[in-house]
C-alpha cells in the first residue's frame, strides 16, 4: 500500500457537501451556454497561441480558432510538413520554436498539447511570461514539479486548467452534482473503468509507447479514470494491490488495476485497458455505491438507484432514475468529436474573461491525479502482498472423471480423429 504523502493543500475528499434542502434534479438551461461573443463580439479578443499539433493539438486548434472571443494568433510544432500546410492554407502564423513564439507575439493565453514530458518547462515559461495556461493531461510527469507550477500559477493569479475533459462530460458532471446533493448518503465504494482500442499490435513509434515520455496506459488511459474518481469523491489517502500488465507494448503497461483507500473507510477500484479491441473508442464508466443507493454513469447515460427518496431532492425518485446525454448536455458553439472538448476550452476562456482562477480542472487538481498516478507506479514496483489459497488442490486424475476432462476430452478426441483418422 502506498500513501499519498503530500497533504499540504486542502483536501476536497471526505468532506461531504451538505444536502440542498429544497434541491431539485433540474435540467439546466440549454440556451444560455454559448460564449457571450456569439451574440455580441467582445471588443477585446483573448489572444491565444497553441503549442503542439498532434491529435489533441489539432483538435484544440480547430475548436479554439472558432471561439467568438478568441483570436488564435499562432501555432507551434516541430513538424515542418504540418507547419507548411497550415501556414499556406490557414490564416495561422506558424512557429517551430515556442520560445520565439512567446517572445514575438503579444498573447493572453496558451494551449499546450505537446508530449507530456515537455509540459513542465512550457507551462513554466508561459506562466513566467504572464500568460493563462491550458495544458493537456497528464499535467506533469513529476508531481513535485507539478505542485510548484500550480503554486506559481496561483501566486501569479493566472487561469490554469488541465485537459481532463471527462469533468466536462455532462453525465459525469451530473453525477458530481447529485453527490453534492448527498443523494447516495455516506459513500462506501467507487469503481472507475476506462477501456479502448489504442494499442492492439506489438509496435508503435509515438511517444505514447515510451515510458520516459509519459506514455503507457497509466498516463494515457488510467489517468482519466483516476481524475474522474478524484473529481467525484476526492483523491484517495492511499493505494494498493496495483497490477500493471503488458500485452503488446514493450516499454509500457497496457492495463492497470488498483485499489484506492480513503481515510473515512471508503474504498475504490480502477481498471484501465487501452488494448481492448471490443470497444470502438474509449469507454469510461463509473459506479458509486452509498448507503442510500448507487450512481452509475458512462459518457452517454446516467442511472441512479435510490433507496429512500425522503433524503433526496425533488425530481429524483425511489428506485431507478435514468438520464441521457441528449437531455443533460449543454449545447456548444462548435462541435468536434464531443461537446466536452469545446466545453472545457470555453470554460477556460470564460475564466479568463471573468478573472477567476478556480477552473473545474485546475493544475492543483491535476497534480492530485499525478500524485495518484505516481503512487500507483511506486506501488507496482513494491513487493506485492499476496495470500495463497492454502494447500494446493489435488491434481486432476487422469481417468474419466472431473470437470475439465469432461470439457476437454471431446475436443481432444476430435483432434486425434482428424490427425490420424482412427479414433475408436
Amino acid at each position, binding site marked *: 500500500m502506498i500513501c499519498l504523502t503530500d497533504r499540504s493543500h486542502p483536501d476536497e475528499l471526505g468532506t461531504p457537501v451538505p444536502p440542498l434542502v429544497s434541491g431539485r434534479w433540474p435540467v439546466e438551461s440549454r*440556451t444560455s451556454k454559448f460564449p457571450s461573443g456569439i451574440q455580441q463580439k467582445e471588443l477585446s479578443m483573448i489572444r491565444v497561441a497553441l503549442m503542439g499539433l498532434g*491529435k489533441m493539438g489539432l483538435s484544440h486548434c*480547430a475548436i479554439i480558432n472558432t471561439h467568438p472571443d478568441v483570436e488564435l494568433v499562432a501555432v507551434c510544432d516541430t513538424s515542418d*510538413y504540418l507547419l507548411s500546410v*497550415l501556414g499556406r492554407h490557414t490564416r495561422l502564423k506558424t512557429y517551430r520554436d515556442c520560445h520565439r513564439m512567446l517572445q514575438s507575439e503579444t498573447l493572453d493565453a496558451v494551449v499546450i498539447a505537446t508530449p507530456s514530458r515537455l509540459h513542465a518547462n512550457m507551462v513554466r515559461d508561459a506562466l513566467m511570461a504572464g500568460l493563462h495556461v491550458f495544458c493537456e493531461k497528464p499535467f506533469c510527469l513529476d508531481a513535485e514539479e507539478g505542485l510548484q507550477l500550480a503554486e506559481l500559477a496561483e501566486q501569479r493569479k493566472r487561469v490554469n486548467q488541465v485537459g481532463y475533459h471527462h469533468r466536462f462530460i455532462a453525465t459525469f458532471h451530473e453525477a458530481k452534482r447529485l453527490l453534492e446533493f448527498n443523494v447516495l448518503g455516506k459513500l462506501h465504494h467507487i469503481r472507475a473503468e476506462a477501456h479502448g482500442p489504442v494499442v492492439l499490435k506489438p509496435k508503435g513509434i509515438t511517444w505514447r509507447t515510451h515510458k520516459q515520455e509519459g506514455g503507457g496506459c497509466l498516463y494515457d488511459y488510467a489517468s482519466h479514470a483516476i481524475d474522474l474518481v478524484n473529481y467525484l469523491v476526492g483523491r484517495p489517502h492511499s493505494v494498493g494491490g496495483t497490477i500493471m500488465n503488458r500485452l503488446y507494448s514493450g516499454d509500457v503497461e497496457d492495463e492497470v488495476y488498483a485499489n484506492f483507500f480513503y481515510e473515512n473507510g471508503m474504498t475504490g477500484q480502477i481498471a484501465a485497458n487501452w488494448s481492448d479491441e471490443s470497444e470502438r473508442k474509449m469507454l469510461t464508466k463509473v459506479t458509486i455505491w452509498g448507503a442510500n443507493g448507487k450512481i452509475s454513469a458512462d459518457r452517454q*447515460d446516467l442511472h441512479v438507484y435510490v433507496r429512500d427518496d425522503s433524503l433526496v431532492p425533488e425530481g429524483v425518485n425511489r428506485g431507478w432514475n435514468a438520464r*441521457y446525454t*441528449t437531455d443533460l448536455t449543454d449545447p456548444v458553439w*462548435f462541435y468536434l468529436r464531443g461537446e466536452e472538448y469545446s466545453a472545457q476550452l470555453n470554460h477556460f476562456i470564460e475564466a479568463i474573461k471573468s478573472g477567476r482562477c478556480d477552473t473545474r480542472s485546475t493544475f492543483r487538481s491535476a497534480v492530485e491525479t499525478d500524485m495518484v498516478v505516481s503512487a500507483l507506479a511506486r506501488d507496482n514496483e513494491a513487493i506485492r502482498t499476496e495470500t495463497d489459497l492454502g494447500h494446493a488442490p489435488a491434481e486432476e486424475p487422469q481417468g474419466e472423471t472431473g470437470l475439465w476432462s469432461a470439457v476437454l476430452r471431446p475436443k481432444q478426441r476430435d483432434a486425434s480423429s482428424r490427425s490420424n483418422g482412427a479414433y475408436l
Partner: protein
Amino acid sequence: MKQIILGDNQFFGINHMSEEKARAQAIKFQDISAIIEAIDIAYDEGIRVFMCTTHERVSDICDHVRANPERYKDFVFYPCMPYAHKYANAVTEKGMVGALRSFLPEENMISALIGGAMSVARKDIERLGGLLIDAEMKMFRGLQTPVIFLQNVVTDLLLGLGMKDAFVIFSEHVKRRYGAEPGFITMNAPLLLDALEECGIDNPIVCSNVNKIGFRMCGGLERYEAIIATRRFRPIAMSVLASGAIPADEAIAYVCRQPKIESIVFGASSRQNIRQTKQLIDRHAAQAA
C-alpha cells in the same frame, strides 16, 4: 415526397444515447448477412439510397451488391469518408505523418514529400487529397455513388482550422474523378455554409443533425431553422430522432415541416422499424405539402 436514406450507424455499434444499445446493435449486426438483410428490407420498402461510412466492413456489402446487380438495380451508395477512427488509431500508433503515409500507395512521390523539410505546394496537397479519396473509394468500384460525402470529423476539423481550400480540393476531385456531387456532413451547419459560400461552392449538399431538441446543432435550433428557410443549399437531415430522445412521430413531423429538406437519413434496423419510419415520413411529408 421526401427522399429517405438508410444510414449505417446502427450497423456499426454507434448510438449517441446509450452504450448498451450500441453494443446490442453491434452484436446483432456482427454478421454481414444481418446487415444485408436490413438493407434488403429497406430496399423492398422502396428505399434506394444507403449512406455509409467507408468502414472496412462496408466493402463486404459492396461485394454483395456487385454480385447481385439485378436485385439491386436502382441501389445507390452515398459514401462518407473517411472512417475517422481508422485514422485516429493510426495517428496514435504512428504519429500524424506516419498515419498519412500509411494510407498512401507505397513509394509514392507524395508519400516521400510528407515529413520532409520542404514547403508543400498547393498541387501537392491536391494530389495528396486525391490519393486519400481514391483509397477510400476503392471498395465502391463499379457501384453507383452519385454523392460522396466528407465525414463530419474531417469537415469540422477543416472548418475549425479554416482550411477552406480543402473543401474545394475535395469537391473538384469527386466531381472530376467520380462524376459525383460533393456532400458535407457537419455538426456546425451555419458556420460551414458561410465557409462553403466563401470558397465558391454553390448550392452545396449539407448533411447535419436536424431535430426539434437542437441536439448537436451548433449555432442553435433557431439559427438552423433560419438557414434552412433562407440559405441556398440542399440540406439532408440526420439524427432526426436525436438517438431516440424524441418520439418518432413528433420527431418526423418536425423535420417534415422544415422547408427545403428533401432527404432524411435514418438508421432503423428491423422490418417493423423501417416500415414504420417510412410510413411516418411519407404521411408527414404529404401533410406538410
